[in-house]
């Protein structure tokens, strides 16, 4: 392509920087591609599809992705599902990750590094991308229920210097078993093995688990109700990473 021709393609003549005229149709790629919009669009669609197909499709088809079908991971209970939805609603994942990396400093700070099979029932995934606060994947069982209650009410009462907002409204607002029932039915459709999902059963399960947390709180002088958001939140936080921790500390280590 001559210098003159190159300039002709790209000169901002008037309103079009291209300034291309019909006579400028010289190079093969122009005749084949750059004058044929449909073909160009298809070529672009192909170019942008390859990478995604290569990376994503094996996640569904390959069997060695560490999903660990045989690992004893169970779905979240109804109350934990409610708590997890609150975790999403309040955007907790924007400041707290749920992925302990396989590094010495992380294992010292948080505990066992995170495995792929631990997330089998995580919909949506909540790995997070930022640590304004600490990772929470091994938070389950680390602190008593009352610690979480106080921390959500006033983060600085348990963690002096914390920049976390207070979530005092969770102490009053309640969770609705009817909505949780709908959630479980949606999760059933994508393969979470819940059985007998009726509103009575869901309410019964939530109440039984919630009352245990209320009892724990009462023993430290905190009065709460089983259907408050804070109780659901505590149920979820205390569950986080605990299935994996039980497996990993129980002698059935992967490596």
């Amino acid at each position, binding site marked *: 392509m001559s210098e003159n021709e190159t*300039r002709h*393609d*790209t*000169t*901002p003549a008037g*309103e*079009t*920087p291209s*300034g*291309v005229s019909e006579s400028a149709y010289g190079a093969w790629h122009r005749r084949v591609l*750059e*004058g044929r*919009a449909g073909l*160009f669009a298809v070529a*672009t*669609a192909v*170019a*942008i599809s*390859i*990478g*995604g197909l290569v*990376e994503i499709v*094996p*996640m*569904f088809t390959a069997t060695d992705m560490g999903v660990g079908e045989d690992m004893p991971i169970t779905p979240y209970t109804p109350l934990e599902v409610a708590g997890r939805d609150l975790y*999403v*609603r*309040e*955007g*907790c994942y*924007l*400041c707290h990750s749920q*992925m302990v*990396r396989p*590094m*010495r*400093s992380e294992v*010292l*700070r948080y505990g066992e590094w*995170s495995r*792929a099979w*631990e*997330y*089998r*029932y*995580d*919909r*949506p*995934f*909540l790995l997070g991308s*930022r640590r304004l*606060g600490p990772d929470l994947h091994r938070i389950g069982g680390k602190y008593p229920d009352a610690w979480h209650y106080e921390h959500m009410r006033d983060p600085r009462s348990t963690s002096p210097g*914390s920049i976390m*907002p207070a*979530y005092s409204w969770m102490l009053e607002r309640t969770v609705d078993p009817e*909505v949780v029932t*709908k959630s479980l039915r*949606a*999760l059933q459709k*994508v393969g979470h093995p819940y059985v007998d999902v009726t509103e009575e059963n869901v309410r019964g399960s939530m109440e039984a688990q919630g009352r245990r947390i209320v009892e724990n709180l009462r023993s430290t002088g905190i009065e709460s109700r089983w259907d408050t958001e804070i109780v659901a939140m505590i149920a979820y936080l205390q569950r986080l990473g605990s299935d994996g921790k039980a497996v990993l500390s129980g002698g059935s280590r992967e490596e």
Partner: protein
Amino acid sequence: MGSSSASALQPETSRPLRPIYDDDVVKMFFTATVVWGIVGMLVGVIIALQLAWWPANLGLPWTSFGRLRPLHTNAVIFAFAGNVCFTGIYHSMQRLLKTRMWNDTLSRVHFWGWQAIIVAAAVTLPLGMTQSKEYAELIWPIDVAITVVWVVFAINFFGTIAIRKVEHLYVAIWFYMSFVITIAVLHIVNSLAIPATWTLSYPIYAGLTDALVQWWYGHNAVGFFLTTPFLGLMYYYLPRAADRPVYSYRLSIIHFWALVFLYIWAGPHHLLYSALPEWAQTLGMVFSIMLLAPSWGGMLNGLLTLRGAWDRVRTDPILKMMVVAVSFYGMSTFEGPMMSIRAVNGLAHYTNWVIGHVHSGALGWVGMISFAILYWLAPRLWNRELAHPKWVDTHFWLATIGIVLYTVAMWAAGLMEGLQWRALNEAGQLANPIFVDITTRLEPFLWIRVIGGGMYLVGAVMMGINFWQTIRGPRRPAEAAAQAA
């Protein structure tokens, strides 16, 4: 905005065969860009303040950081950057293809549909209605609306290409095309979910598959929402503002195809050291590093287009903004691949460094090129002299210094966090066992970020006032209008 479409004819003009372009829809998108831009940046400054000074969360559910942060990201990406893309695309594609948009009704459905989606986002996100996937937080009914509006845009876009009066498609159109196609694919695949209620749904993917799909989407939202359409805009507006031809047509071909092919692979670099299969992590890292080449191809083609016009960069604030924008594009597309190297990512991931990196691209590249395009367009669209030409220079300096304060503070904070999280003492124990101790040490940097972001916001507000007074000012004489066109 109220003028009829006939005004686009501009009968005073000396060019007899000028096509009748629909510039009303361009003005509508222009106005929306400025309004949403200021709103989105204001929310950004508010959440920056919340991190430096927690009482700014106000103790209310709908003003807490976790709910406002998605509002900020959605507002600046989809409301500000989205509308500026549409402003530039509707303006430039009609001229590049020498035809009016295919269907004016579809243009308006696109405009009002997109603004309605933004309003719906601004209501639902503070209420805590979210799907939690970053930059894809909006609840499923809004996702459906986005799909419908996007299809409307795509039909109008390809319809306009079909009725074009020139055979050859200019570089900018290729980039716009990749934007229209790829965003449709990304949005639909990432948003697939089973609804539980009208505001609640669960993705069809679980765990790390969900994470991989999301970051395939998330990284390419940066690639195909904040990069390729803006490169297209650069290829139209930079040569026009500089009055110079694009440096190399061949370079634009090579870097276009390399960019759209390589970008899509880079998503897994958001999941390095996670439990994602290692081969996928490695692919993400390797393709991220390769992305440096086509990214710099675009930067060099932009900067070298200014050859012979560098004297004007000293005096023309629009060109200054474009040069800084393209330079920040080059800098952040160098930084990104470096941060994708596993060892570097081990230090940078989860820290403020990532926030600094994003904002050098967002404020430096996307914001600056947008401001330049808006300043270039306003006098031409409304046929008026800019009310305060000197303010443009002030805006330039406020924004540039603001970006430098922001990014330098975030680099420092990020390195500090990353190093202190991993530091061990002689006994092999954590040197900083209490996490919050490290967070509190970041406070000075978080305040510098508030100042830098605040300066950037003040510049944008000055731009808004400038445009407001320009539009309300007297029309240009006909002679000047004909020459400027």
